[in-house]
């Protein structure tokens, strides 16, 4: 049965399992160390203060805070964004700053509704929560963009948070918010949009920093531990590349693949290319060779010609 894995590659499965173990181990470690004084450390991301600063300004001006969790479906990225928004809402609720949370996915809208109302409840400010402040606009990308920019214009938001999966609409939001003078904090896991956020927003969480931000703000041991686990994975990958490069370099430089003796003269054969090296092969399962495919009986009721349908 083992040879079946030939198609998927043992190494890749082992690596993913190892990486998962890193994450789980560190989450355990973080939970265990919580409150013991020797908590798991994560460094502060430069400029995270921008979030507090933005809410502060909105409060001063008495204008709403806008939050957009991207247009992605319900997945971990939107969840992470909503976690951060929960944090933002907490502060906003205390100062009675109005909030607007615009969603493009109904499932995300459901979760947002729940998280935000829970935040108000926990702060004991349920009466300040307006269900309509969490809105579903449209699931169509640019209808959503139009709706959000309309909201920005008409409500003259003072602070805008764009965190999550953003695509082309990112710049529409950023420039519109800029034109009404809102302070903006943005972060997208879509790297294609980050340069536009860099160009147009006041503060940008680049790539991974987005994950780190929610861990840092919430200080949940699960998030902190997972972040450390991610670091371990990264370091392993870095090690793999370094080791792999050195090993392959050694293999390519040190020897020729074949050396044939032709009469009395030593003739150089083919030099190994990088794809012939041992390390490279570890991560590259080959497609099955024809002779490895076992012979099987035809299934019931299936003729050679007509097929199954």
């Amino acid at each position: 049965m083992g040879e079946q894995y030939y198609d998927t590659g043992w190494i890749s499965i082992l690596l993913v399992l190892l990486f998962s173990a890193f994450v789980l181990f560190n989450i355990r470690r973080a939970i265990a160390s919580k409150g013991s004084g020797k908590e798991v450390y994560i460094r502060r991301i430069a400029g995270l203060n921008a979030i507090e600063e933005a809410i502060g300004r909105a409060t001063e001006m008495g204008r709403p805070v806008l939050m957009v969790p991207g247009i992605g479906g319900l997945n971990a990225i939107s969840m992470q964004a909503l976690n951060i928004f929960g944090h933002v809402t907490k502060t906003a609720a205390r100062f009675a700053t109005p909030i607007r949370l615009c969603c493009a996915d109904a499932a995300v809208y459901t979760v947002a509704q729940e998280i935000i109302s829970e935040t108000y409840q926990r702060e004991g400010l349920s009466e300040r929560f307006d269900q309509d402040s969490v809105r579903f606009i449209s699931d169509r990308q640019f209808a959503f963009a139009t709706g959000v920019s309309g909201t920005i214009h008409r409500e003259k938001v003072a602070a805008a948070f764009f965190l999550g999966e953003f695509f082309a609409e990112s710049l529409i939001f950023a420039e519109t918010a800029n034109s009404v003078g809102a302070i903006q904090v943005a972060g997208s896991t879509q790297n294609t949009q980050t340069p536009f956020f860099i160009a147009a927003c006041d503060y940008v969480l680049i790539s991974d920093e987005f994950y780190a931000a929610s861990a840092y703000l919430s200080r949940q041991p699960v998030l902190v531990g997972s972040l450390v686990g991610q670091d371990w994975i990264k370091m392993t990958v870095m090690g793999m590349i370094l080791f792999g490069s050195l090993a392959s370099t050694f293999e390519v430089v040190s020897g020729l693949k074949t050396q044939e003796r032709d009469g009395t003269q030593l003739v150089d054969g083919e030099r190994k290319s990088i794809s012939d090296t041992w390390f490279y092969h570890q991560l590259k399962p080959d497609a099955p060779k024809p002779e490895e495919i076992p012979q099987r009986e035809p299934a019931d009721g299936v003729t050679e010609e007509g097929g199954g349908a």
Partner: protein
Amino acid sequence: MNFLPLAQAPSLQFFQAPGGSQQAYIMALSAIFVGLLLMVAMFNTPIKLRRPIIILLTFLAGGFYVLSWLWPLPLGLDASQKPLNSVEAVSLTLQDGTTVMGKILQVIQGILLFLGVYSVLRVHAGRFLKRQKDWAFSLVLLCSMMAMITVGYGEYIDNVRSAGVHANAESWTFWQYGKDFLFDGMLQNMDAAMFSIIAFFILSAAYRAFRIRSIESTILLASALIMILALMGLAEYGSGQVIERITGGDPSHFANNFSLTSIRLWIRDTLQAPSIRALEWGIFIGGLAMGIRLWLSLERSGGGS
């Protein structure tokens, strides 16, 4: 063992009913009814049990995909062949199950969409009924929504009734024209308009914010400029002409390494490619870590309270 039985094998599993028969309708409707009853019964679930139920369902939903990833794939098995042994048979079942799981996800997401529609109705119908600011525009929104729904379903029903005869542009009826007008004429064009409006914003953002204040922004700008220049066939051609003057058309001349194309390719392959790759990896790794957290319901707001 297959979830989706082959057409020729009508031996039904317990969760199946003969297609399109009265039995199928009755069983499906009773399943809905029993489900709703169960849901009402669940109102009284003790608080202690609530979280485990959610965690278990989350775990099962994700567990299917984890299992089908871990289970060995048969080598070159195709649909017309019998599996060799039980390992292959299970693998086949898992693969069939992928389609079913996909459908389940789609159905649940679909039903949740009503929540979104409910939100839209609440906000805009409320604004209209209470005659709040901009109530007229809310009315416009509701009307155009109703128009789209009417025409959309009208066309759908008309197509079903006429067995697709009206689908040809020659035999269109009111419904087809209506849908074409609202959808192709308006919605699609407005999509394209909003998409292309970004070009204006890029221009003003670049003019306003692309300042070479720090080393970072200078590098960003320089890299972008080289990319933009090299995208332009003319700039590329012009620089090619200059290089050709120097080399005299000799492709083995050293100066060829300094053409705009060569410089851009060098930057792309040596610096851009790894930097984009490193960024992507951060996201992949984060995705894996979050996948584990959500699947096992470790996160507070992920699955339970």
